[in-house]
């Protein structure tokens, strides 16, 4: 038979195949097509513009560039997730500089860079700003190591900058002048977010920038922008879709308030609202004119706005798809959300009193969670901090919402049982994993035995990320998960009694995963050493903040039965990294 009829696609010219590949955006699909044949591998390589690297130490910049020379958009993640909660020392690693250096030397046409938990220096930002002429978009999430001087380089040198999005970064604020560094010729900004900056900014520079950026859709300012400043900004940018509000004075003059409200009324395209830290309740009311249009509302920093004001506002936000809020809204407030926000897809409820220092009862309980699950049919992602939970509630939630993709429950008190029956919450979480067949991310809490992990291993077939804290009884728990969850990519465990037997049972499993984190568990130095010997393609890192160079020498002669404080292991194709600080030992 004619070969061309049997394998028609092989005989298409490369440009055609490349054009077909352009429609395939997902990284996983792209990885799959590159495995089909040598020619497809080659075509895919040169046509790949977007690359996602979930662990910056899994590969080196040089190898990345060799494989994808036409790279335009790069996402890099550095520190492990638990770094967000102070469990990873600052100097652990995840440095951006080698990447920028390599990309710059290879003259890659970089246009977009997205970083999460990386250490970024002013020098790297300066090099970035000078190396890539078409650079358009910089998104930094939970990064640190830089100052506003680095931002000044970006502002001054990136002629085509469209997006500068700074989320939750630790930035040393040197001067308020980085905004001045945007040249008058810069009019291309579409998104500007500097909400996490702590210091003063030059208000008139910001106003001029906003006024000339006619394409600006998203603007999130920091606490340095007062009420009348915000009014002026919104007046020059009525086309805004996404707004992050700064700091208001506690008693706004009636005239300023009226001007603000008038400016807000003109922003008919506004769909997303956030910020509001240090903002008094009354100022939320200025946004009533547009609240019916909102699809996204993040009031998780609005610690000064009382529950009843939150409820009054949210009840009118009938089109809300995303809501992030503090638990001061209470169960009553969540019941109002359940009856008003029928389009809700993602809900996050954060604790306003994380250490139980106040004597109030306004936190949320299982009642609020059940109400939401019953009232919001489109809900698929939830993060819920609460003081108590019951199996019955979880079973009801599982029945009401079989479509959960992400389910994260954090009961503030570790090991807390069902507050009515005093039993463990195994059955409740078991119901969740059994009902939600598409569940990809799960965080468990409360009193849990090995049984919950048996359920997770049995039913959570699509699970990719699991977070465990203060749970389980024996190694069997961890083994159920490792053996059962075929799609597991990230497993992070703290303060749970899992040890060497679980760690070493199936070393090959870690090749299918991105990483494993275990802290305050039962694994020992000896166990980790054995793992490192049997799996040379893994980097097995022991983190101990008390270590210095001398400590490291002494440790080699220490008892291998010594428990490891923090273990972080991940697959890699480039072997041991060279930039580890003294507190990290790589076995």
């Amino acid at each position: 038979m004619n070969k061309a009829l049997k394998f028609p696609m092989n005989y298409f010219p490369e440009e055609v195949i490349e054009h077909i590949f352009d429609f395939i955006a997902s990284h996983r699909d792209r990885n799959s097509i590159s495995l089909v044949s040598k020619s497809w591998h080659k075509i895919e390589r040169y046509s790949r513009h977007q690359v996602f690297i979930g662990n910056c130490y899994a590969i080196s910049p040089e190898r990345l560039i060799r494989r994808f020379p036409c790279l335009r958009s790069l996402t890099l993640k550095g520190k492990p997730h638990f770094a967000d909660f102070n469990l990873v020392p600052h100097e652990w690693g995840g440095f951006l500089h080698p990447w920028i250096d390599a990309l710059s030397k290879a003259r890659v046409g970089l246009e977009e860079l997205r970083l999460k938990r990386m250490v970024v220096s002013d020098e790297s930002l300066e090099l970035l700003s000078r190396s890539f002429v078409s650079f358009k978009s910089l998104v930094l999430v939970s990064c640190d190591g830089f100052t506003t001087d680095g931002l000044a380089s970006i502002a001054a040198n990136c002629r085509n900058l469209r997006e500068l999005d700074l989320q939750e970064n630790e930035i040393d604020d040197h001067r308020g002048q980085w905004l001045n560094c945007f040249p008058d010729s810069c009019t291309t900004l579409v998104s500007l977010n500097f909400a996490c900056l702590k210091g003063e900014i030059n208000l008139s520079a910001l106003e001029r920038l906003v006024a000339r950026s006619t394409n600006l859709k998203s603007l999130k300012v920091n606490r340095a922008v007062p009420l009348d400043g915000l009014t002026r900004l919104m007046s020059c940018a009525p086309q805004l879709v996404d707004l992050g509000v700064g700091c208001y004075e506690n008693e706004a003059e009636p005239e300023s308030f009226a001007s603000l409200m008038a400016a807000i009324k003109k922003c008919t395209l506004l769909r997303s609202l956030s910020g509001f830290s240090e903002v008094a309740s009354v100022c939320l009311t200025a946004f009533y004119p547009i609240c019916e249009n909102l699809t996204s509302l993040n009031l998780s920093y609005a610690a000064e706005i009382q529950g009843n004001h939150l409820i009054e506002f949210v009840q009118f936000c009938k089109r809300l798809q995303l809501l992030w809020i503090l638990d001061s809204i209470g169960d009553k407030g969540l019941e109002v959300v359940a009856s008003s926000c029928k389009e809700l897809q993602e809900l996050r409820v954060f604790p306003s009193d994380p250490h139980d220092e106040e004597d109030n009862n306004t936190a949320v309980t299982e009642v609020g969670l059940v109400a939401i699950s019953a009232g919001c049919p489109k809900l698929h992602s939830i993060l819920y901090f609460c003081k108590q939970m019951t199996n019955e509630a979880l079973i009801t939630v599982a029945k009401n919402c079989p479509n959960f993709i992400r389910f994260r429950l954090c009961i503030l008190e570790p090991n807390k049982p069902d507050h009515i029956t005093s039993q463990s919450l195994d059955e409740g979480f078991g119901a969740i994993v059994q009902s939600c067949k598409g569940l990809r991310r799960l965080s468990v809490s409360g009193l849990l035995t090995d049984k919950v992990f048996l359920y997770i291993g049995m039913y959570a077939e699509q699970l990719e990320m699991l977070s465990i804290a203060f749970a389980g009884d024996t190694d069997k728990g961890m083994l159920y998960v490792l053996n059962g969850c075929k799609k597991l990519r990230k497993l992070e465990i703290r303060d749970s009694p899992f040890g060497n037997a679980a760690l070493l049972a199936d070393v090959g499993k870690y090749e299918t995963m991105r990483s494993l984190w275990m802290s305050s568990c039962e694994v020992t130095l000896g166990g980790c050493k054995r793992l490192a010997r049997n799996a040379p393609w893994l980097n097995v890192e022991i983190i101990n903040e008390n270590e210095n160079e001398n400590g490291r020498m002494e440790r080699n002669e220490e008892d291998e039965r010594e428990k490891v404080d923090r273990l972080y292991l991940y697959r890699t194709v480039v072997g041991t990294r060279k930039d580890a600080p003294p507190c990290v030992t790589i076995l």
Partner: protein
Amino acid sequence: MENSNSYSPYSSSSVDSTKPLPSESSVNLSLSLTFPSTSSQRETSQDWPPIKPRLRDTLKSLRLRQRGYNTALFVKVYMEGVPIGRKLDLSTFSGYESLLENLSGMFDTSVICGTRDSKHHVLTYQDKDGDWMMVGDIPWDMFLETVRRLKITRPERC
């Protein structure tokens, strides 16, 4: 809440010396632990519950403000000859240098402290006794405790 080790029934053998020792060690393996009595002086854990630093700081500041501790330090700043002043949160600066840089930017001129100069604007402050003093003579932390307002003087005056 004390450090996370006190919650885990399995903490008895591995005690991290960087964290404060629990006052109540427990080896109870199956039941949840009872909590030590509430105390306003107890140390709160920095790694539990799992909330991000920015939220943690926001809530901490709010708590301090509610209890009467001032975390922000807003003072009025005037430029001599200009009737309308600005307000500045001194707690965001690490020292005199960053304060001067910021003021220079805010008022679009060169502001210095200490040396009298016919060219530069010199920064002065009013202390808690009501006296007008030159900025820069005392340590920064001491300055923060005593400063009430700032004034940028015209060059000739000093």
